[in-house]
């Protein structure tokens, strides 16, 4: 069954027109042209094969002026506007155009007339004429469906009087709707005119010229079918609200006069007060050279485990150190690298340095060279740098697989000979990358120093002590300070801890004060 998209009536499969309203039926794949059986997309208004019109003539809201359309054989015919296809006595221009169109059609050779036009010729048969006569309405007579039921006549008459008393202007009816007026239509239409036979069934029963298939010549260039519109109730409510907001005139912005009180002065300068507090908390301990943390800072278990893993390395063993950070976290990572590389060099191990970031290669080179110079290490003999490793997983695998091969290093023959991997990671992805591509496949012991941001995502690997994923873990500048303290070589990280602690205390106090002020404001507001 095919349901008519216009009236909803059910039609049997294969039908091209609705048996109830006469509209072309749109199947699942499109609309079939009744002239040539071509299957067209649902959105088109004319057949893409023969040009036959697929929408009713009467439903054309375009009010564009008539335009000239070219006929195939060079004849020029004045186009007919869709809403005016029903001829009117005073519409001389259109009548002339229709006559011209008829003349042109008659002037064509008989054999050139297409079959679908032949069918149109056969329409006004005697049987059809008798039916037309039976259904034709007298002048001023309304069809059954337009007649007012008796129970509403009184209500409508009262409403009409009320409207006249209030002086409500009459609505302007568009021309295409005016053309559908049955009374006027019946008053001017003569048998044999181009208005066409009246509708026999449906809501448009008795109205002429509203349906039917016409050639593309009769279609106004801008004719378009009116799409069906439906929306849920809440959409209408939203539309009403939106319409109300749009129509509401803009209110002039009121001048806000703010009193210059102490509270507003503090509010406007609060940002500077916070800057000043933080700057003081940072600078004062540095200038005073305080070293409270150097003597009192506790060392966490994860940092201690990292220290122990390096402390247990035998001399002349080879350690692979990866510096995977950039300048954005260099303030945390470089103190870590200095503390750990210094410890490694004191253990007399040989170092292979790599980096998975371009900036990390340069930053690590500066750190390692500085520490190596302090410990008497020689580049090439005691340590070397493989630089930036590109290619993420594949690049890392190629480096560790290339040990001992051409272009590799002679420090070790294979990755399994590396005693420890030390990873400095500015982001947790780098820790995961080394664990997944090196530690797990080759079973190389590994420790990591990570930025404070990366710690929560790297710590589960340290907690997995049963499988020795990370033997040790230190975090941020605090971890570097712990390592320096444990190693007994205080440096920049340990010296920074007093400033770090002061800033943290200041921030906690600021949060407390801010929340108390907010709470007080709310209480006063109540």
């Amino acid at each position, binding site marked *: 069954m095919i349901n008519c998209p216009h009236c909803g009536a059910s039609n049997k499969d294969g039908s091209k027109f609705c048996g109830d309203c006469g509209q072309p039926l749109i199947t699942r794949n499109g609309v079939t042209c009744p002239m040539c059986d071509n299957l067209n997309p649902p959105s088109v208004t004319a057949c893409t094969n023969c040009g036959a019109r697929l929408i009713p003539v009467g439903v054309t809201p375009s009010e564009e002026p008539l335009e000239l359309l070219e006929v195939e054989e060079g004849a020029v015919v004045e186009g007919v506007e869709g809403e005016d296809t029903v001829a009117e006595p005073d519409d001389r221009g259109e009548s002339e155009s229709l006559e011209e169109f008829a003349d042109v059609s008659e002037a064509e050779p008989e054999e050139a007339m297409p079959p679908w036009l032949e069918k149109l010729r056969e329409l006004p048969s005697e049987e059809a004429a008798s039916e037309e006569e039976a259904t034709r309405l007298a002048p001023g007579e309304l069809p059954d469906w337009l007649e007012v039921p008796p129970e509403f006549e009184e209500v409508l008459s009262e409403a009409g009087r009320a409207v006249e008393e209030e002086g409500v202007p009459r609505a302007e009816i568009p021309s295409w709707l005016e053309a559908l007026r049955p009374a006027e239509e019946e008053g001017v239409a003569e048998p044999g005119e181009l208005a066409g036979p009246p509708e026999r069934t449906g809501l448009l029963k008795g109205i002429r010229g509203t349906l039917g298939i016409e050639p593309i010549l009769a279609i106004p260039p801008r004719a378009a079918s009116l799409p069906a519109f439906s929306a849920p109730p809440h959409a209408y409510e939203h539309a009403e609200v939106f319409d109300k907001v749009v129509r509401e005139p803009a209110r002039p912005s009121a001048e806000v006069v703010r009193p210059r009180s102490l509270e507003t002065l503090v509010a406007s300068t609060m940002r500077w007060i916070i800057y000043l507090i933080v700057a003081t908390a940072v600078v004062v301990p*540095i*200038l005073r050279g305080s070293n409270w943390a150097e003597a009192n800072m506790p060392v966490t278990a994860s940092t201690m485990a990292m220290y122990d893993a390096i402390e247990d390395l035998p001399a002349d063993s080879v350690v692979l150190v990866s510096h995977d950070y950039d300048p954005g976290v260099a303030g945390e990572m470089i103190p870590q690298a200095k503390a750990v590389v210094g410890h490694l060099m004191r253990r007399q191990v040989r170092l292979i340095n790599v980096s998975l970031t371009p900036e990390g290669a*340069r930053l690590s080179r500066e750190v390692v060279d500085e520490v190596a110079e302090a410990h008497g290490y020689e580049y090439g003999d005691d340590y070397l740098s493989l630089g930036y490793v590109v290619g993420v997983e594949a690049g890392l695998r190629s480096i560790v697989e290339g040990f001992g091969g051409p*272009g590799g290093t002679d420090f070790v023959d294979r990755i399994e000979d590396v005693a420890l991997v030390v990873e400095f990671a500015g982001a947790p992805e780098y820790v*995961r990358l080394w664990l997944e591509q090196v530690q797990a496949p080759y079973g190389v012991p590994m420790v990591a120093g990570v930025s404070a*941001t990366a710690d929560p995502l790297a710590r589960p690997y340290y907690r997995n002590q049963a499988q020795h994923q990370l033997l040790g873990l230190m975090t*941020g*500048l605090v971890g570097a300070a712990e390592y320096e303290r444990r190693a007994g070589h205080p440096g920049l990280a340990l010296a920074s801890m007093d400033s770090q602690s002061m800033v943290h205390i200041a921030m906690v106090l600021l949060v407390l004060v801010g929340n108390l002020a907010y709470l007080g404001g709310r209480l006063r507001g109540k």
Partner: protein
Amino acid sequence: MSEVLTVWIAAILTLIVYSYLLADNPLYRLAEHLFVGSSVGYAAVVILHNILRPRLLEPLAQDAGVGWPYIIPLFLGLLLLTKARTTIAWLGNSSLAFLFGVGAALAIGGALLGSFLPQIQASWVSIWPATAGSVEAAVDNVCLAVGTIGTLAYFYFTMGSGRGARNALIRFWATVGKWVMLITFGAIFGNRIMGYVSLLIERAYFLLGDWLGLVG
């Protein structure tokens, strides 16, 4: 002399970046563009000198008879350049397919071996003090188990919206998981603040020590 000049340039650029605290200004934009531009330029130079020249061009130039296999990656790399023009971009598809194929194979294999299986195994913990080792370890393991189950339940989107005891149970664990994740995100945020403070301290040491010489 060059070191002094470098320190002065670095100090001035540092102060320009901190001028953003006042308001967005042209000097800050200049420093920002300098940073981005120098980073990209440095990365290009590093790739040319550390990757392309020693690992591709030099082996080809030294002995083409031995190094001829390097023509394959060179050819695949050149095909990637066709991605700059849409009309011939399809030529680079084979190179991209090779890169993504190898990368995905290594990533999936590594994730299974290095993260997925070990972390599942690590979450299989004892919550009894006798077998966990101590009361503290048992409490720690309970938190781990509750957090894992709750987080998994939170992402069980296909269940929990209807009625019934099973849906109510999933909703309960999803709420637990939501709070566990909130605590985790809070910890990450707090650590990030700590990291930024560390960067501020490092810059303060640079300005007060290397630039002004107030700190030894």
